[in-house]
């Protein structure tokens, strides 16, 4: 283990911790300027999510959404496809799973898996479209996915307003799902867990989506690093010309990557409708699909890093919410602090830059002959 501190993994970890600490310090300095009770406000921000069970629940629930979307983004980004379609895929995933949860009169043990499957299929198909456009017609995926997001949002709003909402309701939302359409709590209904289960059911919406999320993470990791498709995907991302030269069907890979990515965004949508809200509401997402980009970047597009990045980012968001509600710091300032943290952590180049500077200086001082590998 003597090389541990020199290993890239450790350096990466140290880098992130250093960035977070620097960002938190900067955030505190800003808080000093805008708050009469900076210590209290900052404590709410830093410790808020841990102070009550319902706040803890909010944090975990939000993180699960972020992790699903983060996995979706990690897949496309690993293939260097800058698809921003997670938002639309998420909305349709929520719409389809929510509709099945509402209207398909089957027992829970069939209806819930069916609803999840519906979300997966919806996300997949909504990824096939920009994938096909990019691979075979050369349409820029950034533009096409953004347009498709707008279309998905309007489809969602239209169906919710005119077809799903109860006709005489004074609000724009579906009816609350019955228990047959709601994801069960993550604690199994066993006698000796009854008390704690009751507590969690009352105060949080942490459902079996937690387990689905863990499985999804492992699945994405397996796909990316253990399957032929994952190899193809990574080679397309590393050098698409090389992939083509080597015989990989790059068009198929691009199409499939965007589609498979949609599966996980769709699951995020199912988690929102069947786990958190237990009904379909307007503005169910508000840009959560884009937060997946932050999560994936924090995790360096590594699926095994996504849960940690998701939990960290979710914590930040939950803490910011609590700070906003319980102190005099405005939402805008909270967002500024949040943005600074993200900025510092994702600034990929700062640390390598510092390192090469250091290495150059050291080599200069020692004038040690190194292997003159690739010079000019």
């Amino acid at each position, binding site marked *: 283990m003597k090389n541990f501190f020199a290993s890239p993994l450790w350096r990466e970890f140290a880098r992130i911790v250093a960035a977070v600490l620097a960002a938190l310090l900067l955030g505190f300095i800003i808080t000093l300027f805008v708050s009469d009770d900076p210590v209290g406000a900052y404590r709410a921000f830093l410790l808020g999510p841990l102070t009550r069970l319902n706040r803890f629940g909010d944090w975990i629930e939000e993180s699960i959404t972020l992790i699903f979307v983060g996995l979706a983004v990690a897949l496309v980004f690993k293939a260097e496809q800058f698809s921003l379609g997670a938002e639309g895929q998420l909305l349709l995933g929520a719409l389809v799973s929510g509709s099945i949860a509402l209207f398909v009169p089957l027992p829970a043990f069939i209806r819930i898996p069916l609803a999840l499957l519906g979300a997966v299929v919806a996300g997949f198909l909504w990824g096939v479209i920009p994938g096909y456009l990019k691979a075979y017609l050369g349409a820029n995926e950034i533009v096409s996915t953004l347009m498709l997001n707008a279309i998905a949002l309007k489809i969602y709003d239209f169906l919710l307003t005119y077809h799903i909402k109860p006709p005489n309701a004074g609000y724009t939302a579906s009816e609350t799902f019955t228990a047959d359409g709601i994801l069960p709590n993550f604690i199994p209904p066993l006698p000796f867990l009854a008390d704690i289960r009751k507590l969690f059911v009352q105060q949080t919406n942490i459902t079996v989506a937690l387990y689905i999320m863990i499985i999804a993470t492992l699945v994405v990791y397996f796909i990316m690093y253990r399957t032929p498709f994952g190899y193809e995907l990574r080679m397309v991302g590393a050098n698409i010309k090389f992939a083509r*030269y080597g015989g990989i069907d790059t068009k198929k890979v691009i199409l499939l990557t965007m589609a498979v990515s949609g599966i996980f965004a769709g699951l995020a949508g199912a988690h929102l409708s069947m786990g958190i809200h237990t009904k379909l509401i307007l503005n169910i997402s508000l840009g959560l699909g884009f937060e997946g980009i932050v999560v994936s970047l924090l995790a360096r597009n590594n699926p095994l890093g996504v849960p940690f990045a998701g939990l960290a980012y979710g914590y930040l968001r939950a803490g910011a919410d609590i700070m906003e509600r319980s102190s005099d710091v405005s939402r805008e300032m909270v967002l500024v602090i949040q943005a600074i943290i993200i900025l510092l952590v994702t600034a990929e180049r700062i640390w390598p830059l510092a390192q*090469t500077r250091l290495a150059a200086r050291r080599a200069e001082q020692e004038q040690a002959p190194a292997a003159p590998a690739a010079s*000019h």
Partner: protein
Amino acid sequence: MTALIDMRDIVKVYPNGVVANDGVDFSVERGEIHALVGENGAGKTTLMKILYRMEQPSGGEIMLDGKPQHYRSSHDAIAAGIGMVHQNFMLVPSFTVAQNIVLGQEPSRRGFIDANEAVRATEELAKQYGLRVDANAVVDSISVGMRQRVEILKTLFRGARVLILDEPTAVLTPQETQELFQAVRALVKQGKTVIFITHKLREVKEISDRVTVMRGGKVMGTIATSEATREGLARMMVGRDVLLTVDKPPHQRGEAVMKVKNLSYVAETGRALLRDVSFNVYAGEVLGVAGVEGNGQTELAEVLSGLRPAAGGTATINGASILNKEPREVRLAGAAHIPEDRLTNGVALKASIDENLIVDRYFGTPFKRGVSIDYKAVKQQGKQLMQEFDIRAPHGQVTVSSLSGGNMQKVIVAREFTSHPAVLIAAQPTRGIDVGATEFVRQMLVRKRTEGIAVLLVSADLAEVMSLSDRIIVMYEGQLTGVFPDAASVAEEELGLYMLGLKRQDPKAMEARL
């Protein structure tokens, strides 16, 4: 008398920690032709860029005429009389020769550029140094050899006393090389000094007065060329004995494995870059494609490997058509391809050595197991091929980007040679790699050919084509101008005439030799 240029204890450390020059002493006398040789990455180009001030040295000093120089940019270096002709020409293609030569120092009359004066100055300069150029021709339309002369005139126009030529012969035909050498000798006669970077030892012997050998960022020695032998120089460059000639056992020509007939290719710009090209490649032979770069050889290799679409004609491997097929299909038909542009096509820099070695076989045994890839087998193969092909890296999980050019090429060679091909298309297989790796790749090519593989060798290095090939075809402007059934009996100058399109064989005669 002090030396004209005296570089002392030059150190250059790049920001990534690579030491390119490590205490280099280098001096050049007035009026000499000084060859600077060394393997790729030995630090020759870096040293010259420091002299020309395209790079700032990390330490050391430079004396010109015995006076220390403190110039900060190429601008100052040019003012001090140093000129550099780069490997890749830096000319404006849409300007005329004269416009390029005066660029930045245009003669003016009443605030306007004096075009006539520019042409006059160009012609006078060209005459003075015996460098033939057409002052009014647009650079886009002139030959590579003339472009090089324009580059040289450009530096002379700026008052260069010292000319640095960075691998000037890499892109020239034998005739053009001879012309260049004559011009260099004429320059020296008129009091100029020339530094000649190369790794072709034959040229060192032919043109230079003294030679400095670099290896691993250090100077191994400076000797008078008359006292040097090619073998001795090669040993200094590599640090061990090197076989300069490839030992080629007599070949057993087999069946025609690859048949190409009336192949044509039209670029996206609408230009026809291959016109009616026909040839066969037989099992157990190396068919060399000679030609000045840019006459369709690149396109030929890429069309035949599935990277570019053909406009017409046929091409088969063992009877299976390979034109306008995806690269996977072409590979499965039996083709392997060492691509000309290594960094673009040949490797994924961000991926590991192991992963680069499986791109054409990850879907077959022993790598595919059920739905997944057996990474133990991948690692195992990586280890084996790294040993077999002498790829120098700590292990197979390091990224290819950390390898030197020679080792990157070995990764490609290792993959393509072990794919059990029927035909191996090798495009510029030794370009830009060092003497040791070149020796290795050439030996492997010959070995595969002797084992019965059909090899199509495309190379701009005429000496390479001549020493490795059994038969040679020559390409000029997308067409075949000659087929030579016995490579050993062809004279270099003869090939040169076909490469320049000055001679052509009768199409019927060529067909008979395909």
